[in-house]
């Protein structure tokens, strides 16, 4: 493929960056602009156009609430509101104040027959209810805190 075609890789380059950092840090984008030759304005345009790209550091666990039709009809807007309150996410923010969870609205996962669907980390939860979500998120939070405690303790010893 010739030179012109390399611009095709802009989206793929951004995907790789995001895989490495979890989001798109400004410095990395400026670096990419220098290396790849695409102006920063264009990179920024692409990065802000697509849902996948994030310009802010996310929480440790990503919670995506499906906003597809079936999920909407089956009450996922309620689940979303519930999660905002339960995770104590300030208006206009997407990360919980303990930095553990990011919450986002997602487009259809294509599991509409299990609506409403919420994804916590890489686990899909079908027929989600606030009660169920509360249980699962508490478990995830505990396991993260436990891991951190273990790592912290291990760090002290060495």
């Amino acid at each position: 493929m010739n030179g012109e075609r390399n611009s095709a890789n802009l989206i793929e380059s951004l995907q790789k960056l995001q895989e490495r950092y979890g989001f798109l840090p400004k410095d990395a984008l400026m670096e990419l602009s220098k290396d790849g030759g695409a102006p920063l304005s264009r990179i920024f345009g692409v990065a802000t156009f697509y849902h996948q790209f994030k310009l802010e550091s996310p929480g440790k666990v990503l919670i995506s609430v499906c906003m597809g039709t079936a999920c909407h009809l089956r009450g996922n807007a309620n689940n979303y509101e519930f999660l905002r309150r339960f995770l104590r996410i300030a208006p206009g923010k997407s990360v919980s104040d303990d930095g553990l969870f990011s919450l986002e609205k997602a487009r259809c996962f294509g599991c509409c027959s299990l609506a409403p669907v919420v994804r916590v980390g890489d686990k899909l939860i079908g027929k989600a209810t606030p009660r169920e979500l509360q249980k699962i998120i508490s478990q995830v939070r505990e396991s993260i805190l436990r891991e951190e405690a273990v790592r912290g303790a291990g760090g002290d010893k060495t």
Partner: protein
Amino acid sequence: MMRQEYWTLMDPCCDYCLHSASNPCVKYVVCRVRGPFCHKSVMCRNRRQQRVKEVLYGPQGVRINVGASSCGLATGAEKVLEAVKDNLRSMGVEAEASAVGCLGLCFMEPFIEIRSEDGPSPIYGHVSPDNVGEIFAKYFEEGSVDGAFAIRRRTGRFKDEDKVPLLDELDVWRKQVKWVSRNCGVINPESIEEYIVSGGYEGLSRALMMKPEEVIEEIRLSGLRGRGGAGFPTWLKWKVCREQPSKEKYIICNADEGDPGAFMNRLLAESDPHRVLEGLIIAGYAIGASHGVIFVRAEKPLMAARLEKAVEDARKWGLLGENILGTGFNFDVRVMRSAGAFVCGEETAMIAAIEGRRAMPRQRPPYPASKGLWDKPTVVNNVETLAHVATIMAHGWQEFAKYGTERSRGTKMFCVTGGVKRTGAFEVPIGTTIRTLVCDIAGGPHEGRKIKAVQIGGPSGGCLPEKLFDLPIDYESLQEAGAIMGSGGLVVIDDSNCMVDVARYFTSFTLAESCGKCVPCRIGTKTLYDRLSAIVEGLGDPDDLRLLEEVGTTMKDAALCALGGTAPNPILSSLRYFKDEYEEHIVGKRCPAKVCSKLVTYDINRELCVKCGLCAKSCPANAIIKTDDGFFAVDQLKCIKCGTCFITCPRDAVEKR
């Protein structure tokens, strides 16, 4: 390199077989299952036939299929597969456990099927790690199929066979035609060998023996129209592209399935990825392209992974790459993951995304068939369309054209979700009525509910009321009624849903997804959304209905691409059929379905209340007060109608009125 653990049908049977990617044999595909053809050897033939049996029923003669596509995995199929293996081991049963795709019967996920050559092949639904043991004990120890959802055939050799319905007798199966989805939920999608045993790549073999023009003619005769929504004749797109003088051409597989409520492409590509790939190679051959791109939606990673595996395997065995099957045809494919934007489903936007730009559609003409990717002639075909191409080339156009209507031939997959008993993906001949699909196959409404409408075609489609359910589902009939076939998602709306809220929901979707390039869509979606929001909040004005209609019609006429042009469909169609619900919101200031929270009053039912006080604690407006007798009550003057108490109450004692 991966170590070859055992001999497969893809491998040479003996030293006579010289096929390899660098030295291709034209009979490679058909030879795998029915061969060998290049030399006479009873041993080689037996070896092949023995292996075919092993593929179908496992080396031990019994094979347990576990449905493991995204929907199955979401309901815990992974753990079920583990449990199946554990139980086989602990019971000492010799059988193979295999992950397969999705049968489309999502309402009973996760499922397993026990297959053996002369067995009844029972299918069990709602399987969990806890009941696998029980199922196996009954089947392997008692020889009973009791508890199965259905069996594929009656053998008379198992107990309780007459207690379990035959799959072909069930409404959910009987009224379907499994044409393009025949392998879904049957074969292991990650095994090219299983696809070959099911007749895979024979369509490609046949196509490569024909002239490209003859392939186009075959597709013309079949009457296949694009399954992505617009229904443009596939052969015509191909012909226009073929006739372009350019040496370089591209074929793109549109796997950016973004309509909420539609997942047939995901299901197909996850359950039978080689069929999609085969269709893509045939399309590439027909138009004269040497490069293909599969553009996959970001939210469907398993689909991308399975397609990538299929591409890798096809390349390994010389079905992709240079001089495919010795015919001199060169073709290669790359799988690209979208970064997520609904508008990518529009072909010129998709091309922009593949070129690494913002996905903004452009004016057509020129159509991509003459000026597309990198300004070269390009054909964009949907996943299901390509899977149909592969199937038509394998079985002949006559078989395909048997189904469907005069103007729209063949079958189409539909995803039925929302307020029905049996949600899932079903394949029916085009022209099947909405009633057959929704009431017979999907089982009708939940107990105590009434179906009000069905929303066809996602955010670009329309809402059709129950009284139109005898309408045949084909491109023209739906368009006349104000909806579109779209990709084939049917969301069933029952009396617990509010039509205005549904219309607002779709507009919020298109508002967020509008790329902002053209004025009618950018400003139109915002205006529609604002007015609908006012209506559901009780601030609507009788003049709003006229405004909605006017803005909607303008968008239809003037928007640049299909996203903007179809965005008002959900509103215009619900205005046409459910005007009374809009008026009730605007004039009566109430929501008949009790969905729009601003038009609902909350009250606490004392008979259900357990005095836990969670509602009062969670109320952000402190509008819930403790009464003298210990119960709680809502202060309607303070209530901001956020609905928090309704969600929080553990006993469902908060009621809407």
